[in-house]
C-alpha cells in the first residue's frame, strides 16, 4: 500500500482547486507567506498514515492474555519483549520512544478504533478512513473538506511526497505535495515561460486546469519552502523520520501550514510478520518521538499534535506463514504536549469476536472530531457529515 491507492472512482475529484491556484502569482503567495507567518500558539496537526494494515495486537500488546499467546504461537511477544503500560497492555518492545511519551503523559492510545461493519479490503478501508465517511461513499478527503471550508491557500495543508494523498483532496480545494528534497524551480526566461503555462484559461477542462495549476503551485511553494528546506536537509535514516524532518523544518520556519501529512508503507504482514512489523513500529515510535523532541525545543512545543492510524488491524489468529491476515479495529495514537495521555476506549476481547474479528469499540470519527475541533478549530459536524460526538484528547489551552 502507498498513498493514492483507491478504487473509489470519484475520490480525487476536486473541481476548480487548481484553477484558483493558477490565479495566485508567485509574488502574491511568497508575500503572503512572509507577511503572514503562522502565529505562535496556532495548533498544527501532523497526520501519520501507516499503509497496509498495522497489526494492533503486536503494537499495543495484550501480553498476558492467554488467547493472545495461544492464537499466535510463533509470533506473540512475551513479557520480555514488551514495555508494560498497565496490568494487561504493553507497547511493542521496539517502541521505547512512545513509552517515554506515555510516561510523560503525552501519548493517548485510543483502543479498538475502527468504524461500523469494517471492510477488510485495503483500498476500501483506507478510502473510508481518508474520506472520513464509513457509511456513505464520498469523493473527498476529510482534510480536503476542512480546506473547502476556508479560503484557498496552497500552504494550509501539505503532504510530504510526490503524488497527491487523497485525504488532502477536497471538493474545491486541495493540499499541496512537497517532496523530501524540496522544490527547485528554474529561473530566468524559462521561469517566465513556464509560469505562462500556469495561467488559467477559459478553454481548460478540469484536468487541464489541474495540470496548469500544478505548474503554478511549484513556483509559489518553492519560493517560500526552498530556503527553509535547503537550510536543513533531512538527516535521519528512515523514510518516516526523513519526512518528519522536513515537517519540523517547515514548522520551525513558521510556514503557514495547519496540517501536514506523512506516511509509511509496508504493514501488510501476511507472512513472517515479527521481523518486519517490529522494525516498522520501532521506526514509527523513534521518528515521532524525535520529531516531537525537535519541535519541543522551539516556541512551537505546545502547538503540535501527531495522529497515527492505519486502515485496519489484523486477524487475532496467526496464519500458516507466521503472519496475519486483514482484520478490523486497532489502536490509534495521538501524541503531543497538549494531548491528555492515557487509554481511551477499551481493549476488545480476543475471544468474544465479531464475525471472527476484533469488535469495534471507538468510531474513528470521535478521534477526527477531536482533531478538527480541538486542534484545527474547525466545525466537525459539517466536515464529518453531522457526526456529533468526540473524545476529549486535547487539553484546552488555559
Amino acid at each position, binding site marked *: 500500500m502507498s498513498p493514492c491507492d483507491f478504487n473509489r472512482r470519484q475520490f480525487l475529484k476536486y473541481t476548480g482547486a487548481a484553477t484558483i491556484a493558477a490565479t495566485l502569482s508567485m509574488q502574491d503567495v511568497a508575500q503572503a507567506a512572509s507577511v503572514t507567518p503562522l502565529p505562535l500558539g496556532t495548533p498544527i496537526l501532523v497526520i501519520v498514515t501507516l499503509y497496509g494494515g498495522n497489526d494492533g495486537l503486536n503494537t499495543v500488546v495484550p501480553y498476558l492474555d492467554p488467547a493472545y499467546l495461544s492464537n499466535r504461537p510463533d509470533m506473540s511477544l512475551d513479557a520480555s519483549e514488551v514495555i508494560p503500560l498497565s496490568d494487561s497492555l504493553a507497547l511493542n518492545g521496539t517502541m521505547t520512544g512512545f513509552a517515554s511519551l506515555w510516561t510523560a503523559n503525552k501519548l493517548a492510545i485510543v483502543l479498538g478504533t475502527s468504524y461500523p461493519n469494517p471492510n477488510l*479490503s485495503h483500498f476500501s478501508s483506507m478510502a473510508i478512513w481518508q474520506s472520513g465517511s464509513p457509511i456513505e461513499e464520498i469523493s473527498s478527503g476529510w482534510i480536503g473538506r476542512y480546506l473547502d471550508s476556508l479560503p484557498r491557500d496552497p500552504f494550509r495543508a501539505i503532504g510530504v511526497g510526490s503524488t497527491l494523498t487523497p485525504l488532502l483532496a477536497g471538493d474545491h480545494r486541495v493540499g499541496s505535495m512537497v517532496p523530501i528534497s524540496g522544490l527547485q524551480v528554474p529561473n530566468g526566461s524559462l521561469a517566465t515561460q513556464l509560469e505562462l503555462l500556469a495561467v488559467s484559461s477559459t478553454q481548460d477542462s478540469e484536468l487541464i486546469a489541474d495540470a496548469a495549476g500544478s505548474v503554478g503551485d511549484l513556483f509559489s511553494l518553492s519560493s517560500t519552502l526552498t530556503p527553509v528546506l535547503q537550510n536543513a536537509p533531512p538527516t535521519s535514516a528512515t523514510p518516516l523520520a526523513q519526512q518528519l524532518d522536513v515537517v519540523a523544518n517547515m514548522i520551525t520556519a513558521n510556514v503557514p501550514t495547519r496540517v501536514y501529512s506523512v506516511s509509511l508503507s509496508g504493514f501488510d504482514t501476511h507472512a513472517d510478520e515479527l521481523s518486519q512489523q517490529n522494525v516498522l513500529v520501532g521506526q514509527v515510535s523513534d521518528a515521532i518521538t524525535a520529531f516531537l523532541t525537535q519541535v519541543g525545543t522551539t516556541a512551537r512545543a505546545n502547538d503540535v499534535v501527531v495522529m497515527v492510524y492505519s486502515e485496519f488491524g489484523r486477524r487475532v489468529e496467526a496464519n*500458516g506463514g507466521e503472519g496475519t*491476515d486483514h482484520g478490523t479495529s486497532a489502536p490509534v495514537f495521538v501524541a503531543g504536549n497538549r494531548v491528555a495521555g492515557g487509554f481511551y476506549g477499551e481493549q476488545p476481547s480476543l475471544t468474544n469476536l465479531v464475525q471472527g474479528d476484533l469488535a469495534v469499540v471507538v468510531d474513528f470519527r470521535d478521534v477526527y472530531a477531536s482533531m478538527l475541533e480541538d486542534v484545527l478549530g474547525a466545525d466537525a459536524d459539517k466536515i464529518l457529515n453531522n457526526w456529533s460526538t468526540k473524545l476529549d484528547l486535547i487539553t484546552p489551552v488555559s
Partner: protein
Amino acid sequence: MTAASDRLELSRLVHRFGLGPKPGEYLQLLAGGIPQARAKILARRSDPGLNALVTPPFPTMGQAPSDPTASAAYWKEVYDQSVSVAMWWMDRMVLADYPFVERMTWFWHGHWATSISKVTYALPMKIQNDTLRTHALGNFKDMSRAMVRDGALIFWLDGEENVAYSPNENLGREFMELFTLGVGNYSQSDVHQAALGFTGYNVDQTSGAVTFDPKLHDNDKVSVLGKRQVFDAVTLSDWIVSRPENATFIARRLWFRFISSSIEPPASLSKVFENRDISPLINSIARNPAMRRPQYSQAKSPVEWFVSACRALRVTPSKLPSSGAVSWYLDSMGQFPFNPPSVGGWPYDEAWLTAAATQYRINLAYYLVQNGHIDALTSVPKSKMVQAAADWLGVAQWSVRTERSLNQAVSDSARLALLALNAPEYLVNA
C-alpha cells in the same frame, strides 16, 4: 481544413491506444481520416520498429552467495537487472511502430499489479510480462489461468505461504477484489474458501518457477460463490472468471483507464465481453462516441508521458547516457515499470498533477530534449513552429495560454520543445 473533433479523436487514439505519435505520424494519420487511423492504431501485425531490439538476458540468479564480496556483486547484479528489465520494456514501448500490444500490456501490468520491490528478481517479472503480452488481446479466462500460476504474482501475494493446514488469504482476496470481480461481489467466507482453493503452489523466487505440491493443497470440497467442489488454481480461476460480475468489472476497468476515471461506461459495454475476449471489448471502447466528446480528458501517468516524449524525440530509453537518471526521475515522479506502489496499481489523473511531480518532469524533459531530435521543429519557419509542435506531439489544440508561452520561445527550438512537453495540453490528453 480538418475538423477540430477529428484532431481531438485522433489525439486520443494515438495517446491512449498507442503511446504517442512518432514524428510526422499525427499529420499523416489525420490526412487518411479517422477510420483508417483507428484501424492502423488498433492493428496487430509484425512490428518493424522492434526488429532491431535485442532482449537482454535475465539469467536465473540462484541463491545469494555468503561470501561478502561475491554477495555485493550478486546484489548489484540483481539491482542492475531490475533497472534493465524496465528499460527493455520502455524501449519496446518507444520503438514499436504498432504500440497497441505494448499499451495493452502496460494496462494489464497495472491491473495485475505485481512489484519487484518484493519479488526482487527481474526474471520472474520478465516472465510475467511475457505472459501479459501473450494474452494482452486474447481471452481473459486464459490470462487469468496463466496468472494464478505465475511465479511473480504468487510470490507477491504470499501464495507460497498459503497451505491447506493454514491458509493465507492475500491472493484469494486480491484475486477477487482487484483482478476479477471487484469489491462487494464476494463475501469474507468466499475469500477464505478461495484461499483454500489456491493452496499448494510453491515458487522458486529467483527463477519464478512454480511447482504444485498436492500434499500442501486442500483436497476437501470448498464453497466459493455458491459452488461447492474441490478446486485448484485453474478450476477456481475459471469459476470466478465465469461469473457475470467479471464481465462488468473488467469492462469498467478498461473504460476507467482508457476513457474516463470519472464518467461511467454505458451499461451495455460489458456485453461485448461476454466471451471474455479482450479484443472486441477494447475495440468497442475505441469506437465509443465518448472518444469525440470533450469531457473525457485523461492525465498521462509519468511513464506514459516519458514514453510519448521519447517517441516524439526519437530517443531510445536504454541508450540514454544514464539509465540511473531515468529511473531516478521516474521514481521521483511516482512511477517506474515493475514497481507499482501496491497490488492496487498506480493512481490516476489528478494524483499525478502535483507541484512535486512538475519539478522532476521539467528536469527530465530538459534531459530528453538534450539527448533527442527536434527536427520536427527546426525544419519549419518560426511563424509555424508553435502549430508544428502540436502536430509533432499529437496535441489536438494548444490553449491561448500555451500559445503565448510557446511564442516566446520560437527563436530557440529546444526551449520550445521543453515547454511543449510540459504544457498542460500535453500532460493531459484533452
